[in-house]
């Protein structure tokens, strides 16, 4: 102790709060200038935003229409079905999160089964059976709107596009020239055109090429478009995963006597798909954002509802509040998802390779 008292303490400007300030904000004269400039900028922006949010904005347009934003035109007396569906998803998600470390636990296998079952279950719950039935009355897809529709479009889009995308990826890597060419042409064409044109095509052109007796609702047509579009991107992601599998895996699998199909199904695909999970999550986030484009073809997703709300008589001219609210919901969802996907990436150890 006595010896240490001779040791000169570091100058006050190098440690603690002052040290941090000096190192990070005022290290050189131009950094100090930048800091002062940034502070002024932050002050101006924050002041404007806060005064608007707290004082000037009329949030009544959002609070009165909260239900409209969430489920839109879905019949109010049937709304409980949406909440139950949401409950199922939340329950499964919480269980999955809690049990993420318990590898090999039999409950995990049941969870997978639960996820798989939840899709048809929620579909039936939301859509119902027949128009007259006493229980689970039919709610046609065209009445699904708001955040509900946004979620349905994004989730069904990514799930339905997955098998198609895997097939396209395998087709593109195939050694059969005709299969390969057709798959490549499909993938590159879809990736070369904007989503909005694919959506319009599914709305206007698809019915022309179907028999007249087949009548798809606008939501189903939009879903078809989203799926066809998303499949091309899934295919490229899966192809990346397939390319990452060392050739030794193929050779070893063949050496033990597996045929082409088994090599793919048992050895290569399971490894490749595990490697592309983060990419698929990223694709899901961008698909989730892209669902807003159905507004342009006249569907009432979250943004479509927002646009409709700005036209309400009593809330005319409140575009800022409505679109800021829509943006906030999208931000909350996307930011949470990208945070989760970063954690997932760490857990899978994909980045470490």
């Amino acid at each position, binding site marked *: 102790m006595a010896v240490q008292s001779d040791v000169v303490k570091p100058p006050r400007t190098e440690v603690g709060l002052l040290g941090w300030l000096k190192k990070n904000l005022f290290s050189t004269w131009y950094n100090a200038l930048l800091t002062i400039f940034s502070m002024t900028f*932050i002050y101006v922006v924050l002041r404007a935003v806060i005064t608007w949010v707290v004082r000037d904005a009329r949030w009544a347009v959002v609070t009165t229409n909260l239900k409209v934003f969430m489920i839109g035109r879905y019949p109010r007396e049937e709304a409980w079905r949406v909440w139950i569906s949401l409950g199922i998803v939340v329950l499964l998600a919480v269980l999955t999160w809690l049990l993420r470390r318990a590898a090999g636990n039999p409950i995990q296998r049941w969870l997978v089964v639960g996820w798989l079952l939840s899709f048809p279950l929620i579909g039936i719950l939301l859509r119902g059976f027949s128009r007259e039935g006493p229980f689970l009355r039919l709610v046609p897809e065209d009445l699904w709107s708001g955040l509900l529709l946004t979620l349905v479009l994004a989730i069904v889009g990514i799930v339905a596009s997955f098998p198609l995308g895997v097939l396209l990826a395998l087709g593109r890597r195939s050694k059969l020239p005709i299969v390969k060419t057709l798959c490549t042409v499909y993938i590159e064409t879809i990736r070369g*055109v904007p989503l909005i044109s694919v959506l319009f095509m599914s709305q206007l052109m698809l019915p*022309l090429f179907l*028999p007249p007796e087949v009548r798809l609702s606008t939501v189903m047509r939009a879903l078809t478009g989203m799926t066809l579009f998303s499949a091309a991107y899934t295919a490229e992601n899966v192809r990346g995963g397939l390319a990452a599998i060392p050739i030794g895996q193929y050779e070893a699998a063949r050496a033990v006597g597996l045929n082409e199909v088994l090599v793919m199904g048992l050895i290569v695909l399971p490894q490749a798909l595990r490697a592309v999970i983060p990419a698929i999550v990223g694709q899901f986030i961008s698909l989730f954002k892209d669902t807003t484009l159905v*507004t*342009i073809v006249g569907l009432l997703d979250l943004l479509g509802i927002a646009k409709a709300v700005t036209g309400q008589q009593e809330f005319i001219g409140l575009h*800022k509040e409505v*679109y800021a609210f829509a943006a906030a919901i999208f931000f909350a969802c996307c930011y949470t998802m990208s945070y989760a996907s970063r954690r997932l990436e760490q857990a899978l150890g994909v980045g470490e390779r």
Partner: protein
Amino acid sequence: MKREQPDISGKAVSGCITLNQGAGMSRGAATVGRRTAVPFWRDERVLKVLAQIAFVVLVLAIGLWALSNYRERGLKFSFGFLDEEASFDLAEGIAFSPTDSYARAFLVGVVNTARVASLGIVLATLLGLVTGIARLSDNWLVSKIASIYIEIVRNTPLLVQLFFLYFAVILKLPQLKVRDEITAITLPGPTYLSNRGLALPWPRPSESFGSWWPFLVVALIVTVLLWILRARGVQRTGHPSFNFLWVVSAFVTVPVIGWLVVPGNPLVLDVPVIEGLRATGGTVLSPEFVALTLGLVVYTGAFIAEVVRAGILAVPKGQTEAARAQGFTNGQILRLIVLPQALRVIIPPLISQYLNLTKNSSLAVGIGFLDLYAVSSTMLNQSGRVVEVFLMIMASYLSMSLSVSLIMNVVNRRIQIVER
């Protein structure tokens, strides 16, 4: 190896042959085939052909079925309608009147998309570069501001941003004029920003422009020649030179001399004047154009910033440290050491961001800007030619995508060769 092969295959004949894939192996398979005949339904070559035939038949069947449904509706397929009178008006872009043809209308759309995309690409690159570097700044505040901007923009849909910008910001700007009083936001120039768009001063060629433009051509030639000469000089001597400064001063000097020689002013600054309820003269950018360009730049800029950041981080730290040890200043390190190496990593993802921007410009239809897509959907509603118009849309976007990636690939190749 060659001698061993038949022995191995001989033990498990059928199993091995169907698995053989490589060109080198097929010779081995053939020799075995002569010894123990493979039934044709297990012969890989036959199977390959059969699989492809089956695939083609399936695709053709679906295609023909779809086509027969199309025919059943009594629809014909022809591009003849392109010569017909469009009979709708387009307020944006090159001159167009309702008596012009559909083909001309489509051209208007293509030009408008090209305008937005090219301006957007340039501005987004600048914004992305600045933000990407700011994100890596030593200054804590600057880097935080940059990362908040990037996170907010990347995690909200572009269409929501466009709607916000157009309906909630640009259309809410003050009017140009209220009761003989200019209410627009007036910036030096004069530049008027109002809910009718942005009116900017713009140079217009006068009569003497005809004798001045040859100077521009000469300036271009001199600049290119000087660039090549200087670059050679640098390679020969190894001394750094102020290449950029030389070239820029040459490019400026020649036209200035021309300006002094030519009688009168070849270019006149055309200033916007508010007449009645609208601004005339100068260049007036419509509110839709301003909203779309601004939205695309802000959105793509955030993505480019991430690309730039990743590229800079990919340059090993030792490069910066070595440069600092040799006495380079921070600016020089960035300009001479880090950015040239980072560019190699940056260019390929940058290409895909440019392509995304071009494709995203189709969201213009949501805010009523008359781009390629919006014009096409009007054409489609007027003429009812769904399939033809869609083929044209696809062809245009594909050719734009292909040409952007072609140009960028050339740039990419140049940079890779120069560096390695």
